């Protein structure tokens, strides 16, 4: 009986190994298979004692070779481990790491999103003879050992919204949050609240969440992972992966989307993307690696759970310690803990005081701010850097004096004057009516010339209205003598448009149906943002190839040559009708407007500049295809990084306005673009999380032709309005006057 069970276990171990190593030939796997078969064939002839000996030997051999195979794991093997139905899941962790838990809002498939598991759990800590149960909010994706309804941990927008809600509950209750990332990526549907927009909201809220957060990565698939992983401590299981895109997705893009990528190409992409725990630790995107048993943790590896428990306790302790400090003895002990003392023996209360809560957020910002700095080319000279640092300091002092100190007294004084004036006016009104005078004429008070301007019907003597001069920059496409057909011609009956008209005077707008043809980013720079008189900064920060992705240097050099830019982001300071603003533009022709480390850094610096100088911040997405996959996690980390900077800026009282154009998809929309409370789109633009092809591939459902159109996004509630290209400047100026927080200098 016992022998049967042990033999079965060995067979299961073998089949697991074969699952992991896939179709690859491997001598050790072949040996194990051969030995097991040999034993099974000979077993009926053995006596009881002999069987015991043989099975014992086989088990030893298995353990030995599993250890050997562990060293041969390729990144793609790790992906297969993580996706294996036998991989530990969140439920196993709740059972084995925490002392008690109650699942919230779900019982198997009866849940708003069965893939997202939320639980209130407790961890018991000893303090002498007393036991203290420390509550935590546990949030994470549950893959459920292959349970179909869990959707493989691919979370729908409403699942992420639910997670966010319980993060806020944890904040109210002042208890730490432990998140466990087990997701291959978010489920790319646009139904409200929308995959991208909800992840953006999650990131934005987490950036300012005032409770300790610890994230543990097992399968970190890009946006889906970021939705819950913006944490003070980020731990990673040694066999997990954390990546910008699945290796299959990367291979599909690399090999041209049409045909299915070969296994070899997928393996190569997994290798190049640097997705393993070791890589991510080296790059600085995670804090610690939690060692798993050979070939990955499975639900019966109890030693692994004990280790995981120690690690999450230690991580939470460290976060609390970092935020509010502990007594000197415990701090000393904590340092010792790194040398092997069990963190469970030191008691730390996990609820934070009010001062520490603000400090925690600031510390979190600093932590993410420091990430991925190595991943770009900074071509500035030492002198420039010093000058920039100095200027920044001076501006800070200037802001402090002008806006914080001087303006405060000025406001108080003007408030007082205003009150007096109002009093006197009432007095005047009373006197006037007493004297029987008609006050209407004086109340109107419209200057004479303005009155004539407002009431005059037309001014023929000033000549015909010449619209050709309306645009300072005229698209080179308007120099071609040809006609262009509007894509709506079939349904709206638009006539063909002559290119010089269309791209010149009409600003790329169909004069019949209003369809907006894409225009160059220069058109916007010069006609909307007055780039000729703008001050561009940080142009010297250029995109690099931090992962040494094969063949990418060439492509990058080509993009730089073709566009004359160093990255897909241009940041500058300009004026909109006498109001100074900071503008960041994502340029579509440069690698599809993808965002990598350089773009992220430029955006953060632009936002910081706007914050220090108390300027409004506009973000114009001329088109972005998402995060630059060749930069791997260096790219994906820009999602939380830039969103945190945005949060800090908005909290400080700024105006952050986003304008979408052409096609904006994926990472940037799911983070720093999507988190803005004021998002507008140029007509005929597309906004979404994943393109139609990716949606079809991941969900199996094809979407209607205009699924991502701005009007669809508007009716889903993702954006706040749609603007005509020709009115952009006017609308942006109006936005300056009507939107935004209190800290803008011109308010």
């Amino acid at each position, binding site marked *: 009986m016992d022998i049967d069970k042990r033999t079965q276990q060995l067979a299961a171990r073998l089949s697991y190994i074969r699952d992991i190593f896939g179709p690859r030939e491997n001598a050790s796997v072949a040996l194990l298979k051969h030995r097991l078969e040999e034993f099974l064939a000979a077993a009926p002839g053995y006596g009881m004692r002999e069987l015991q000996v043989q099975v014992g030997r086989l088990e030893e051999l298995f353990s030995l070779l599993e250890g050997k195979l562990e060293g041969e794991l390729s990144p793609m093997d790790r992906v297969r481990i993580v996706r294996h139905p036998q991989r530990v899941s969140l439920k196993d962790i709740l059972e084995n790491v925490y002392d008690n838990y109650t699942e919230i809002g779900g019982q198997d498939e009866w849940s708003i999103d069965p893939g997202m598991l939320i639980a209130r759990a407790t961890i018991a800590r000893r303090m002498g003879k007393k036991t203290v149960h420390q509550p935590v909010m546990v949030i994470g994706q549950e893959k459920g050992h292959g349970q179909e309804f869990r959707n493989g941990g691919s979370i729908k927008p409403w699942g992420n919204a639910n997670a966010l809600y319980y993060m806020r509950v944890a904040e109210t209750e002042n208890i730490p949050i432990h998140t466990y990332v087990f997701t291959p990526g978010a489920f790319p549907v646009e139904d409200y609240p929308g995959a991208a927009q909800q992840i953006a909201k999650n990131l934005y809220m987490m950036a300012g969440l005032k409770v300790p957060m610890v994230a543990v990565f097992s399968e970190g698939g890009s946006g889906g992972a970021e939705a819950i992983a913006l944490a003070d401590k980020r731990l990673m299981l040694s066999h997990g992966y954390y990546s910008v895109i699945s290796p299959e997705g990367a291979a599909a893009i690399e090999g041209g989307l049409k045909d299915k990528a070969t296994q070899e190409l997928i393996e190569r992409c997994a290798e190049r993307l640097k997705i393993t725990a070791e890589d991510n630790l080296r790059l600085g995107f995670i804090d610690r690696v939690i060692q798993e048993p050979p070939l990955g943790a499975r639900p019966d590896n109890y030693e692994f759970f004990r280790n995981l428990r120690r690690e999450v306790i230690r991580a939470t302790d460290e976060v609390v310690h970092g935020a509010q400090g502990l007594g000197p003895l415990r701090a000393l002990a904590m340092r010792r803990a790194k040398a092997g003392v069990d963190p469970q023996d030191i008691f730390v209360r996990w609820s934070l005081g009010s001062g520490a809560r603000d400090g925690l957020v600031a510390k979190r910002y600093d932590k993410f701010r420091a990430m991925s700095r190595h991943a770009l080319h900074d071509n500035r000279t030492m002198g420039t850097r010093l000058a920039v640092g100095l200027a920044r300091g001076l501006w800070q002092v200037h802001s402090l004096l002008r806006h914080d100190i001087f303006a405060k007294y000025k406001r108080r004084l003007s408030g007082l004057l205003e009150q007096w004036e109002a009093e006197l006016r009432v007095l005047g009104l009373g006197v006037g009516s007493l004297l029987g005078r008609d006050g209407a004429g004086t109340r109107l008070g419209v200057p004479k010339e303005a009155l004539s301007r407002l009431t005059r019907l037309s001014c023929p003597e000033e000549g015909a209205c010449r619209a050709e001069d309306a645009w300072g920059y005229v698209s080179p496409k308007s120099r071609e003598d040809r006609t262009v057909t509007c894509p709506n011609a079939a349904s709206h009956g638009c006539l063909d448009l002559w290119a010089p008209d269309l791209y010149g005077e009409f600003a790329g707008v169909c004069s019949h149906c209003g369809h907006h043809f894409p225009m160059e980013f220069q058109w916007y720079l010069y006609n909307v943002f007055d780039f000729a008189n703008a001050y561009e900064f940080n142009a010297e920060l250029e995109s690099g190839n931090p992962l040494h992705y094969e063949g990418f240097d060439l492509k990058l050099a080509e993009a730089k040559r073709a566009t004359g830019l160093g990255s897909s982001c241009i940041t500058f300071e300009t004026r909109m009708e006498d109001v100074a603003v900071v503008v960041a533009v994502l340029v579509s022709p440069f690698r599809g407007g993808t965002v990598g480390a350089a773009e992220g850094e430029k955006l953060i610096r632009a936002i910081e500049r706007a914050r220090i100088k108390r300027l409004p911040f506009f973000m114009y997405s001329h088109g972005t295809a998402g995060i630059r996959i060749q930069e791997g996690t260096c790219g994906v980390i820009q999602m939380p990084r830039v969103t945190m900077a945005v949060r800090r800026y908005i909290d400080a009282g700024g105006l952050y306005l986003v304008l979408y154009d052409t096609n904006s998809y994926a990472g940037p929309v799911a983070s720093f673009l999507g988190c803005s409370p004021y998002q507008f789109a140029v007509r005929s633009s597309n906004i979404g999380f994943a393109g139609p092809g990716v949606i079809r591939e991941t969900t199996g459902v*094809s979407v209607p032709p205009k699924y991502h159109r701005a009007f669809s996004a508007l009716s889903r509630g993702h954006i706040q309005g749609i603007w005509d290209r020709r009115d952009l400047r006017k609308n942006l100026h109006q936005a300056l006057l009507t939107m935004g927080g209190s800290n803008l200098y011109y308010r």
Partner: protein
Amino acid sequence: MLNVKEMLEELKASPYEEIEVVTPHTGVVQFVGLKAGDRVAGPGGKWNEKPGTTLATLTREKNKKNICATQKGVVTDIAAQFEDKFVEAGVRLLTIRHFLSKDEVIARILKKALYLFCAPERAKYYFVPEIDGKIKAGGEQSVKPRDGMEMFIVSRMKRETPLAYTGPEGIIYAVYFQQGDNVDGGQPLIGVCQESQLSLIQDVVNRVQGEWEEQD
């Protein structure tokens, strides 16, 4: 009186529709290598978002446009003399022989044999209670609409107004709407036929269902 049988014979004699593809505007025509007898497909995809087979291209002012098939069928009679020539608008380029499907045949017969009473505006439509009761008890054919007979209730934004039937007298052959669903303006509500023709029409429809051979 309509002769439905004759109509069917007529359709059987030429079980297809000839679609003449003409140039929408002036331009230089280029055929894309189609031959007479080639099969072409109409618009496809769930939302008809994929255009049909390209038949020819028309270039005007350096703007090359595809002319695509609007129905599936077989190409006959290509006006090859226009290859690389400048043509006026409305010039026939080729003809597509589109074989009628069962549904199309039935639709054609019914279009001629029935009087369709259409919805005047987008709204929810209901039968008035008496008629509704009659239909439920005795089937659609038990109702005999007359001109001026109050038959429907139009419900829009929770305001209900009566609607009278206008048209020839007869009996209801078919009801084309679901009570309580929104019907667009211009969509048929009921089809009315003469009482004497009812059995004939039913017979023809049954025969089409059973006998019509769909080509391709």
